[in-house]
């Protein structure tokens, strides 16, 4: 049992991962840091236990119980029985990779990294997020057929452009696609990710081009780093072809994390000289530099901000969203705790893509629900697509009655 899992994980385990497993003393500092554990009380959700499960299996001798002997008992080897497989699936898939546990760990152990590698190994056994993997495959395929998609895509964007021109009563607003520019903006799927930026770039008189691709990278969620690199590389090629100076990713948490934290390692010199930012950072710079102006107090009522784990804790983007919100809101209220200690919403790690995970993520979102309720907010604003879906689902499930918005949507609506 779990032979492919073990072969894969043995092939992929790195020195840091080995250290994490060896260093963890199970002090328990991470226990109450995990929103899954807080909501479920299930031991499989304790970060240290997640790590220990994989360690036990890795120490299993290749020839099963026979070779376990007394050293096996001493080294806490674990044989893969049905119960252990169930726990392993829970430990590796019911995790959003938010890395809140790492903040509380006295050794900064990165359990989420172990989970990520473990997920890929479980997929080899056919035990896992097949939907996320399927979307990841489509993101890789997209680059192979992009020439066939281009004309139709551009036609569609022209229609969108026409609608914005009509709404704003301007004739010179453009949505450039596949054109040389200073900024390459990479959206997520949905008009909501294009329209606000088309307005903001127009107001800021930016030289920009809309990417033919989308920022999302589902292979990253399932630990398939080779495919994650392939999907991201289409954007690298596009950026180089268009000669852009800046790549700005839409409000998408995991994709922004890959852009800011992984691309140097993945692509090295290929991306040297190209600045990479979240679109939230770009828009905050426009406001600070006076390139755009907004209507102060455009949103009159209590508003709070949810730090997406991948933009906040995992990429250090805390102040730019707050700068933008404070520019348009009359009553901004922080969640408690916030920034690096903020609770994950429970929707990350690819769970939104998995219909079967709905109940798990609704439960894991309970700490977030309580946080929001304490603020009395009317609007919950965030900068990650998955967080937006999860927060809207939580609002509906728990009757929060909040409206979920993106930071750049607010700015686009408040432009003067």
């Amino acid at each position, binding site marked *: 049992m779990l032979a492919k899992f073990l072969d894969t994980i043995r092939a992929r385990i790195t020195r840091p991962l080995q250290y994490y497993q060896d260093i963890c003393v199970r002090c328990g500092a991470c226990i109450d840091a995990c929103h899954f554990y807080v909501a479920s009380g299930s031991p499989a959700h304790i970060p240290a236990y997640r790590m220990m499960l994989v360690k036990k299996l890795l120490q299993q001798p290749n020839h099963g119980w026979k070779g376990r002997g007394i050293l096996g008992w001493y080294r806490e080897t674990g044989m893969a029985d049905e119960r252990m497989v169930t726990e392993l699936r829970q430990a590796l898939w019911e995790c959003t990779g938010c890395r809140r546990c790492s903040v509380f760990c006295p050794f900064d152990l990165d359990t989420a990294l172990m989970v990520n590698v473990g997920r890929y190994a479980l997929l080899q056994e056919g035990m896992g997020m097949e939907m996320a993997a*399927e979307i990841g*495959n489509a993101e890789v*395929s997209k680059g192979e057929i992009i020439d066939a*998609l281009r004309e139709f895509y551009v036609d569609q964007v022209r229609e969108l452009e026409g609608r914005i021109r009509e709404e704003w009563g301007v004739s010179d607003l453009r949505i450039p696609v596949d054109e040389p520019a200073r900024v390459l903006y990479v959206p997520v799927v949905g008009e909501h990710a294009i329209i606000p930026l088309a307005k903001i770039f127009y107001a800021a008189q930016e030289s920009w081009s809309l990417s033919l691709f989308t920022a999302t990278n589902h292979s990253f969620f399932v630990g398939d780093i080779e495919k994650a690199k392939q999907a991201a590389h289409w954007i690298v090629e596009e950026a180089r072809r268009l000669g852009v100076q800046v790549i700005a990713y839409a409000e998408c948490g995991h994709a922004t994390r890959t852009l800011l934290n992984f691309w140097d390692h993945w692509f090295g010199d290929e991306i040297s000289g190209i600045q990479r930012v979240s679109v939230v950072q770009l828009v905050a710079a426009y406001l600070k530099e006076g390139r755009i102006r907004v209507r102060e107090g455009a949103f009159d009522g209590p508003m709070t901000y949810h730090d997406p784990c991948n933009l906040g804790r995992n990429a250090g983007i805390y102040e730019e969203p707050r700068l933008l919100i404070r520019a348009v809101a009359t009553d901004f209220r922080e969640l408690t705790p916030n920034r690096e200690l903020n609770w994950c919403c429970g929707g990350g790690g690819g769970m939104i893509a998995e*219909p079967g995970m709905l109940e798990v993520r609704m439960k894991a979102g309970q700490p977030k629900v309580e946080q929001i309720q304490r603020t009395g907010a009317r609007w919950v604003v965030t900068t990650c697509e998955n967080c937006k879906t999860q927060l809207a689902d939580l609002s509906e499930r728990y009757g929060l009655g909040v409206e979920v918005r993106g930071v750049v949507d607010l700015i686009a609506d408040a432009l003067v």
Partner: protein
Amino acid sequence: MAEYAPERTLDARGLRCPMPVVKTSQEIKNISVGGVLEVLATDPGSVADIQAWCKSTGNELLGMEKGEGIFKFWIRRVK
């Protein structure tokens, strides 16, 4: 107008990422092998993503049609 006699129609308009592909993947399972799924979409990204999904899963994109602010396309379930 193209005629493909779809067994089912999926309304993927206005869905957030990555739901257009997720819903298409779920809906195609409700179609018999060889049957046709009709998908309605509005935004540019979802149409391209569903086309890419067809390529990666081996399902056949039969055709597309552009109407008044709406895009229709037809997918044949291959396996």
